[in-house]
């Protein structure tokens, strides 16, 4: 009762009053929201069900209740403490649920907005006869609510970015397969753009594969690389040098006429690299280095020729 009287007294004086009142007013708000929790929460869940924003569709009634209590309490705690770790954690959790498709972000945001409206209306009812205090209460309430909503939106955003990044990584890894064509011979067909990040990844994958397959020769085919500038060429040189440190010979194939012109014009020295015109030639050279001989059988006898003799 004393707090009410004090708050009422201070709000009457306008101006300086708003600076003094928020603390006590906040406590009162928190107390109100905690006391009338069941009523407000019930109203919220009903409002969501009515508007079709009930994002907890897949949950049982009991789970829905627990979940809504949790959200409600988290929000009130944020209002009480003025710090938002709880909201951040919860928003992150929800965002992950949205990401795996268990929930729609539209519905969840709608639900949060509904919660704001329900609480706002509760305040209107609570302070119906005191417009000044209602105004001050909204002044305390709204920034907190907005902050929570921003946190939720940001969490969705962050989660989506994380997903995109994961997918990009997956695509990158898929895009540079290291293939074994014969015992101790790998081919590395490079397709697309090479930036330093991809070059690093590619080198890493190649070195791992060299160890795994105990490769002696690697044929690196760059037919699918559209543009080779000095940067890309240097990445390729680094890859070749690293493979060589593991004792592997790297043969570069598929240097297109245009690429050859660029490389020479730019002045990159690829003379340390062993180059062959196309992938077929590269594999033939590799076969020779490894001591394989490919012999064509009699086409009449064996339509498919598996004859490789060491």
């Amino acid at each position, binding site marked *: 009762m004393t707090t009410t009287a004090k708050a009422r007294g201070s709000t009457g004086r306008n101006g300086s009053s708003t600076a003094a009142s928020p603390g006590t007013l906040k406590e009162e708000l928190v107390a109100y929201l905690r006391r009338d929790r069941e009523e407000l929460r019930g109203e919220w869940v009903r409002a969501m069900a009515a508007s079709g924003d009930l994002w907890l569709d897949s949950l049982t009634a009991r789970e829905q209740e627990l979940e809504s209590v949790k959200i409600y309490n988290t929000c009130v705690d944020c209002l009480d403490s003025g710090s938002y770790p709880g909201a951040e954690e919860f928003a992150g959790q929800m965002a992950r649920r949205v990401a795996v498709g268990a929930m729609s972000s539209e519905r969840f945001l709608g639900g949060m907005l509904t919660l704001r409206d329900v609480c706002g209306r509760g305040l209107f009812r609570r302070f119906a006869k005191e417009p000044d205090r209602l105004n001050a209460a909204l002044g305390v309430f709204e920034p907190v609510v907005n902050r929570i909503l921003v946190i939720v939106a940001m969490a969705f955003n962050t989660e989506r970015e994380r997903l995109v990044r994961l997918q990009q990584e997956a695509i990158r890894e898929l895009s540079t397969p290291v293939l074994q064509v014969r015992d101790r011979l790998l081919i590395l067909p490079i397709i697309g753009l090479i930036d330093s990040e991809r070059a690093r990844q590619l080198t*890493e994958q190649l*070195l791992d594969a060299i160890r795994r397959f105990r*490769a002696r020769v690697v044929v690196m085919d760059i037919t699918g690389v559209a543009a080779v500038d000095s940067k890309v060429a240097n990445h390729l040189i680094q890859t070749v040098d*690293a493979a*060589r*440190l*593991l*004792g592997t010979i790297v043969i570069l194939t598929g240097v297109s006429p245009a690429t050859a012109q660029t490389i020479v014009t730019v002045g990159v020295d690829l003379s340390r690299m062993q180059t062959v015109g196309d992938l077929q030639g590269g594999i033939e050279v590799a076969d020779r280095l490894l001591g394989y001989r490919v012999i064509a059988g009699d086409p009449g006898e064996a339509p498919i020729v598996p004859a490789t003799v060491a």
Partner: protein
Amino acid sequence: MPVPILAQAPYLIASVQSALTDADLIDLQSGLLDKARRRRCQGVVVDVTALDVMDSYSTRTLQSLATMLRLRGVETVIAGIQPNVAMAMVQLGLTMPDVRTALDLDEGLAYLRAKPHGRAGRGQ
């Protein structure tokens, strides 16, 4: 910790077990040169599988070791450089262009065995 040098005629195997101090490297260099002379060996494999760092000093020492041994007609193979070590070395520009490398000890010895040892003045 000094590097043990094993004789596996006609080759020597230096098996690096732990990170090398500068003194260890110098010992390794003189030890190998000395033993290669006494044993009249044809090839040396330095196995660096256990190393997870190769700095410019150790790279340079191994490189000059290879050059010194070559002056005595001994072929040197550095075996077992780890993939991440290779990446780091390349980024530092330590590519050891004149040194023979191999995947591991096995490969290093296989390379030496496959190489015809045509020493000057001695038919093979």
